[in-house]
């Protein structure tokens, strides 16, 4: 059974709004997704019915808040096939998850001068800049896996770049720019076969769109954000293998992450709370749990199927627009619901502004937090339309017709 898009659209309050009499066509889902009323209500429920701090109160409301917050951890664990909540650390977002890995491994002296960290050339800044920091701080060398001509990962180059100095390989599972889906299971096998490096995966553009199993991938770390998968902002996930997280040093120090504190020493709380210092984003965490419920109810296979259909429609229709060049793999199996494009003479920001002004079509323009790869295609930046489960073929048509109109007008 597929998605009933017309019905599920009723769950999204923003889609019912009119801007100057016109509906919103939201095609900026790779940046953040819209939120269904179920998530908004769940988040509000915490504020309305059981506002309390977690893990430190004896009263009913604190117990309920703690229970709901931990339930969200359980849901996240089940959602990505982790063993349990001890492998699910709530962070602020995927960026913080990567920073946690970088800082924590640095603090325990995991990296030595001359060690190598390997990332691909299509990474988001979240999976690039923390390793650049390690280059300066620990003297590691950052290496890059090349891409094929169709912007898919070059697995041969990955194999070639692995050696005894490689300490960590960190790859995206789905690009936020060139739309490639990386077979991270295959990449993980190559990494394990050719090195003793840890393997981290950026799942920010994968988890919201298709089923993911960390067990099947066999990765050591997996990072993603709630706000890209219908959930609230300010909450993200770091999955880590239990035995690794146990060995790792805390990322931040203070309240809630401790078991015992003396004047000059402390011991750490059990996993995952050892890595969740201070009062966390409780309402957001609980709302995130509701987002997982919502996605599971729809079924991620159905979400993927729907996205493939509308992406196919968009790629076919965008060919009608003269002067537009699309980047990314042609094979739908190898790409996600992102259409990265260049419109020749017209600047990407101009296109985004004109689409918004003329037809309430919200797309993204610029470097998309992946400056090196985008700049290598067009130094001025590119335009990006990204789809999600509530987008329709009619919306794609509005986008394409408006794009045609704009490019026909502003020559």
């Amino acid at each position, binding site marked *: 059974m597929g998605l009933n898009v017309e019905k599920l659209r009723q769950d999204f309050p923003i889609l019912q709004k009119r801007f100057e009499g016109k509906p919103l066509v939201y095609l900026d889902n790779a940046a953040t997704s819209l939120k269904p009323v179920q998530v908004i209500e769940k988040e509000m429920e915490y504020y309305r019915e059981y506002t309390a701090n977690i893990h430190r109160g004896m009263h009913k409301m604190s117990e309920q808040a703690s229970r709901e917050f931990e339930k969200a951890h359980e849901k996240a664990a089940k959602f990505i096939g982790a063993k349990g909540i001890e492998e699910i650390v709530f962070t602020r977002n995927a960026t913080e998850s990567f920073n946690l890995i970088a800082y924590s491994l640095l603090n325990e002296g995991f990296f030595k001068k001359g060690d190598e960290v390997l990332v691909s050339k299509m990474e988001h800044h979240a999976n690039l800049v923390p390793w650049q920091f390690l280059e300066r701080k620990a003297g590691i060398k950052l290496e890059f896996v090349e891409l094929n001509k169709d912007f898919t990962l070059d697995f041969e180059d990955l194999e070639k770049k692995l050696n005894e100095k490689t300490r960590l390989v960190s790859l995206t599972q789905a690009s936020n720019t060139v739309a490639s889906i990386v077979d991270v299971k295959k990449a993980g096998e190559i990494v394990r076969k050719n090195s003793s490096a840890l393997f981290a995966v950026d799942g920010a553009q994968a988890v919201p769109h298709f089923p993911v199993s960390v067990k099947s991938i066999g990765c050591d770390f997996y990072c993603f954000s709630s706000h890209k998968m219908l959930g609230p902002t300010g909450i993200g996930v770091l999955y880590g293998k239990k035995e690794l997280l146990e060995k790792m040093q805390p990322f931040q120090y203070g309240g809630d992450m401790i078991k015992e504190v003396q004047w000059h020493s402390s011991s750490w709380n059990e996993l995952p709370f050892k890595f969740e210092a201070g009062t966390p984003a409780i309402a957001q965490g609980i709302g995130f749990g509701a987002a997982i419920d919502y996605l599971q109810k729809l079924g991620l296979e159905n979400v993927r199927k729907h996205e493939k259909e509308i992406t196919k429609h968009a790629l076919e229709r965008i060919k009608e627009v003269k002067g537009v060049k699309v980047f990314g793999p042609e094979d739908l199996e190898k790409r996600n619901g992102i259409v990265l494009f260049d419109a020749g003479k017209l600047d990407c*920001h*101009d296109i985004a*502004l*004109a689409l918004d*002004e*003329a037809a309430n079509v919200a797309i993204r323009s610029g470097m998309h937090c992946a400056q090196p790869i985008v700049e290598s295609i067009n130094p001025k930046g590119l335009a990006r339309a990204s789809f999600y489960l509530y987008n329709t073929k009619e919306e794609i048509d509005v986008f394409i017709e408006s794009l045609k109109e*704009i490019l*026909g*007008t*502003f*020559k």
Partner: protein
Amino acid sequence: MVFCLIGLAVFGALGIFSAKYRDYFRQALKCVMQSAVLRPCTTGFDKKMQMKISTKLASKNKKLGNFVFKNFQAISVIFVIIMFASLAYGAYGVYNWIAFGNCNGPQGGECVLNDLTAPQTQECIQAGIINDLDQNSPGLKQSTG
């Protein structure tokens, strides 16, 4: 940068009446301040306005929209020149009015500032003509019944 100067004046005035324009005013101000210290404008204000105005015009007339889009910089320069010219001319008028009691200087002539303080206007107020007008206004008649 050029359009930011116009935006500063236009949205500064409009911002008195609407909060929507106050944000534009702030963006224009930031842009002007950045440019004043030879830094690039980071708000993208002129670009946003260029597309907003051009798209609005294009919805009425495509050719006009495209013309404004293509020549936005030149049109902005013309408007800035007109703005500064009228400011300078206005300032000169005020100087003349203070120095000679007339906007046009010693040679005299029609002056809007004179009209405001003209003896006739003062006489009208003193004679109570304005009160008489108020008494006879239709709104007053209705309210008094």
